[in-house]
């Protein structure tokens, strides 16, 4: 078996390439996914390769919002779909003997939109995802990114949205039938990272204001898995608080100014160890 490490980080267009390199090298990241990356992808891949000692390459994409870099020796991946806003990019991955689809998302932020509008937008993006997958053979699915919603918000849980659940056991059936239509449930392990009774920060994004309902911590960066991938989950989803020697948390236990205003998340798959098929890029 071989462990493949995935990273997702919304960089907020901050010039923190050194931190990114340090994190990738320290945690042996094989697949790095970035939102709001202010550095041209080729430049980032070059710096990552030179500073981490691993060989990263960019992946062909028509989304300018989302950047995926892969460690050349570890994985093969091809983008096969991008939606109109570039907020959803789908890639067919082959890691060892395990084929699956990696969906990378960066949903619209809440600024100027109410909860209902954000939920509708999440449902529209989820429909993009379902439509694109409908014409392909069903394989494992992993959805990762900045959803700009908490795991409990409607767009994340409703059947026409991302239909994600807080426990693996909710995925005992690969499809659930609602009003005669089948929907694919997804497991959202980020539910388990909330609050201060688990290791690590209480969320991936911190914002405190004087509004009547204020959670302070927000779990907007999330990863979701379909039932096919559950047997391969090694690291279910972790909020990262260090990039090498540098803490991403300040002394008040909030995301530090030295990094992005989002904390990165990581997860790992432990897959049967056979030769990857090379992507035809």
């Amino acid at each position, binding site marked *: 078996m071989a462990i493949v490490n995935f990273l997702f980080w919304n960089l907020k267009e901050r010039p923190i390439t050194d931190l990114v390199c340090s994190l990738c090298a320290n945690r042996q990241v094989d697949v790095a996914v970035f939102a709001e990356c202010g550095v041209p992808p080729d430049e980032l891949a070059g710096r990552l390769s030179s500073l981490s000692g691993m060989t990263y390459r960019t992946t062909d994409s028509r989304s300018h919002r989302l950047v995926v870099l892969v460690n050349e020796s570890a994985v093969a991946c091809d983008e096969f779909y*991008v939606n109109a806003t570039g907020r959803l990019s789908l890639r067919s991955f082959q890691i060892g003997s395990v084929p699956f689809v990696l969906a990378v998302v960066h949903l619209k932020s809440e600024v100027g939109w109410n909860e209902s509008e954000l939920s509708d937008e999440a449902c529209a993006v989820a429909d993009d995802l379902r*439509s694109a997958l409908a014409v392909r053979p069903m394989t494992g699915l992993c959805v990762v990114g900045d959803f700009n919603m908490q795991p409990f918000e409607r767009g994340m849980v409703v059947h026409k949205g991302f239909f994600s659940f807080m426990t693996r056991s909710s995925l005992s059936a690969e499809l659930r039938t609602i009003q005669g239509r089948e929907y694919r449930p997804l497991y959202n392990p980020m539910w388990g990272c909330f609050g201060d009774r688990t290791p690590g920060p209480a969320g991936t994004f911190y914002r405190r204001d004087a509004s009547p309902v204020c959670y302070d911590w927000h779990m907007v960066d999330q990863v979701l898995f379909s039932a096919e991938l559950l047997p391969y989950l090694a690291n279910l989803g972790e909020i990262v608080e260090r990039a090498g020697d540098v803490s991403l948390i300040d002394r008040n236990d909030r995301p530090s100014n030295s990094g992005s205003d989002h904390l990165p998340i990581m997860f790992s798959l432990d897959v049967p160890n056979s030769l990857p098929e090379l992507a035809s890029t």
Partner: protein
Amino acid sequence: MTVAATDLWPDDVLVAPETVPSPLELLDYQARCLEQRTSNRLVVELPEYKTDDRETLRFTVAVPSQDYRCVLFEVLHRPGFMLPASFIPPEPLPNYLREKYVSSPSAYWSLSQKMREELEPRTIENQWVANTPAEFQTKLQKLLQTQEIKALLASLMTMASRPPKANLPVTPANGAE
């Protein structure tokens, strides 16, 4: 004394139907044009997504030889009414690739300034809303000439020129049923 009455009806909406195609005809025609001009290296699908309050038509360009799909733009309208329609253009290119962009100082403002601004009423003009078939045609033409659409098409043409991908999944776009 009687004052001569004036015809107040707008000209653009009362044009003879045979002079301006309907939005759906126009989109379908652009789809066929693209396929013809690329010798079917690019093909167009027009799937629609429906919710209670709106329908979204996705102008999706597929590269059959590479099993790749890219939604070039979307058209939003109310259920049962094709007009008014609003085009959702492709995402803007990053600043370092744009021919021209407006640099906003907002990134340097304090959070409280930003929040104050968000509370004040603002007028937002949507340049991509079309109310009549003629406007739809004009705006579609403008959209297809944008840097983003041209860049996406160029990229898809490059992709289509590559050797066909082996072991394609069975999909309508690559001719399999």
